[in-house]
């Protein structure tokens, strides 16, 4: 077994033990981080794998949260997990398909601006209208129930149950996206990132490939957004604001692009640092900014490639 696999397995065991060893605060914090890790992996499919830098990814994250509220009708009645989750994910995927179909007609920096513009449009739809409480947002009073007939395998109201559901979600997303990357579809996406002109000359319909990737990434972001909304217990327009898109992009850059492990690492680093800096000063954003700049300069490949950066530095020091 390779060193990477052993590290991954150890991390998994550690995560599985959190609810056994730590209190409620850490169980909630780590559940939140794992949700963000799923969100970051979905963006990695676009940025790291396909080379599409999107600044509007939070739109798909937030819309899934709103889908829970809007599909419920009565805010005090519990919805079923089994119907609301597919509905929320489908809403995100469809929105991504529509936005992607238009945005993917542009390239490079224009693509970044167009994704930002579309996500801001979605933001203002929820901010400036009375839908789901307008700019105040609205509460999700009752979490979805996971009943099959009369049997309920777990309850999302229970913090530990919620934690393990999210852990399962993280593992499932990682395994499925890994398989996707190893498939011919995944190889084609990497080819597009590397040299789209060549891919077209070989006969690949790169637009269709990019649109499929965009919709899949939107769906997975919706998966994360669904559980984030349930954990927070409310949805508001901040969930789909551009800050959220920028934060998840920072997680990717911190962790390292293109291999999903970096996305997960980045999510942990970002949220834990944010938590640490917040406890030091209310001007935590300054510290965070300084850290990100230092990380980008010292570890251009992200935290997951820190070993490579260290070896390269040692070689240079050895040459001198």
């Amino acid at each position, binding site marked *: 077994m390779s060193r990477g696999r052993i590290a991954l397995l150890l991390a998994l065991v550690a995560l599985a033990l959190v609810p056994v060893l730590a209190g409620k605060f850490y169980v909630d914090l780590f559940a939140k981080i794992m949700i963000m890790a799923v969100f970051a992996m979905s963006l990695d499919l676009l940025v790291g794998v396909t080379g599409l830098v999107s600044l509007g990814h939070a739109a798909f994250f937030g819309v899934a949260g709103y889908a829970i509220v809007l599909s419920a009708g009565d805010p005090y009645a519990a919805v079923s997990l089994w119907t609301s989750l597919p509905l929320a994910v489908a809403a995100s995927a469809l929105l991504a398909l529509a936005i992607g179909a238009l945005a993917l007609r542009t390239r490079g920096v224009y693509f970044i601006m167009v994704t930002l513009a579309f996500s801001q449009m979605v933001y203002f739809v929820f901010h400036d209208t009375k839908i789901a409480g307008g700019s105040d947002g609205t509460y999700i009073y009752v979490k979805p129930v996971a009943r099959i007939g009369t049997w309920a395998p777990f309850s999302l109201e229970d913090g530990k149950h919620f934690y393990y559901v999210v852990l399962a979600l993280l593992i499932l997303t990682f395994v499925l996206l890994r*398989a*996707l990357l*190893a*498939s*011919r*579809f*995944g*190889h*084609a996406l990497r*080819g597009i990132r*590397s*040299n789209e*002109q*060549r891919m*077209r*000359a*070989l*006969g*690949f*319909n*790169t637009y269709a490939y990019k649109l*499929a990737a965009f919709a899949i990434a939107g769906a997975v972001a919706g998966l994360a957004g669904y559980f984030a909304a349930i954990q927070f217990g409310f949805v508001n327009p901040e969930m789909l604001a551009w800050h959220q898109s920028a934060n998840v992009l920072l997680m990717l850059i911190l962790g390292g692009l293109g291999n999903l492990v970096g996305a997960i690492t980045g999510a942990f680093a970002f949220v834990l640092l944010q938590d640490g800096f917040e406890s030091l000063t209310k001007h935590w954003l300054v510290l965070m900014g300084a850290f990100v700049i230092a990380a980008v300069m010292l570890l251009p490949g992200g935290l997951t490639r820190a070993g490579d950066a260290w070896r390269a530095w040692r070689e240079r020091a050895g040459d001198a």
Partner: protein
Amino acid sequence: MPEAILAARELTRRFGGLFAVDRVSIEVESGQIHALIGPNGAGKSTLINLLAGELASSAGSISFRGSPLPPASPERMARLGVGRTFQRSNVFLELSAFENCRLAAQARTPRAWAVHERAALCRASNDGAAKALTLVGLGSRGSVLARALSHGERRALEIAMCLATQPCVLLLDEPLAGMDAAESGRMLELLRQLKHDRGILLVEHDMDAVFAVADVITVMVNGAVLASGPPGAVRSDKLVRDAYLGDAV
């Protein structure tokens, strides 16, 4: 009578006031190597880009096996079977030679969207890649990263990738540029072998090579066709001698 696979009629491409390609009619027939020669800036590469669907034409038409084609799209041309290579090697530098060819072959494999199958285990693309690499003489260099290949090997890889897509027309933009004598000799031999069931349009500056392999030669100057015909006739054409060949041959 050989059949014209790819034919351009009165094809024109303007860049502002400049006619890069000016009412060019040209045919690529199966079983033939059609060489396209001319001084720098004559519009040879622009013509290749038009025929490959990379550039949209300003006027004129392109037909494939007799049926006219809708506006340019490189992926459609490639799927029809029009493969092209680039003047400057345009390969995936961070992939190995074999992976480059496998990705190219993948463009032709069925069920390319099957996300549960591992790309590395796809028999059709692996076989196609191995065959293409062997054809161009890179059979033993498959595991080398494209960025670590020599310039000449990268030119060969460029052609192998094109072959892995199983084209019936090859548009080759200066395939011999930067190859040493042995490499170009091998490449010319390969072109002779490939033309049996394919049409080849060859843009090349090496006149010895052109006159050695070409069945038809078209000379372009300033975007327009100056002369076209069998090598012997083109060689003795006074206009061509004055405009381009001089005393070279």
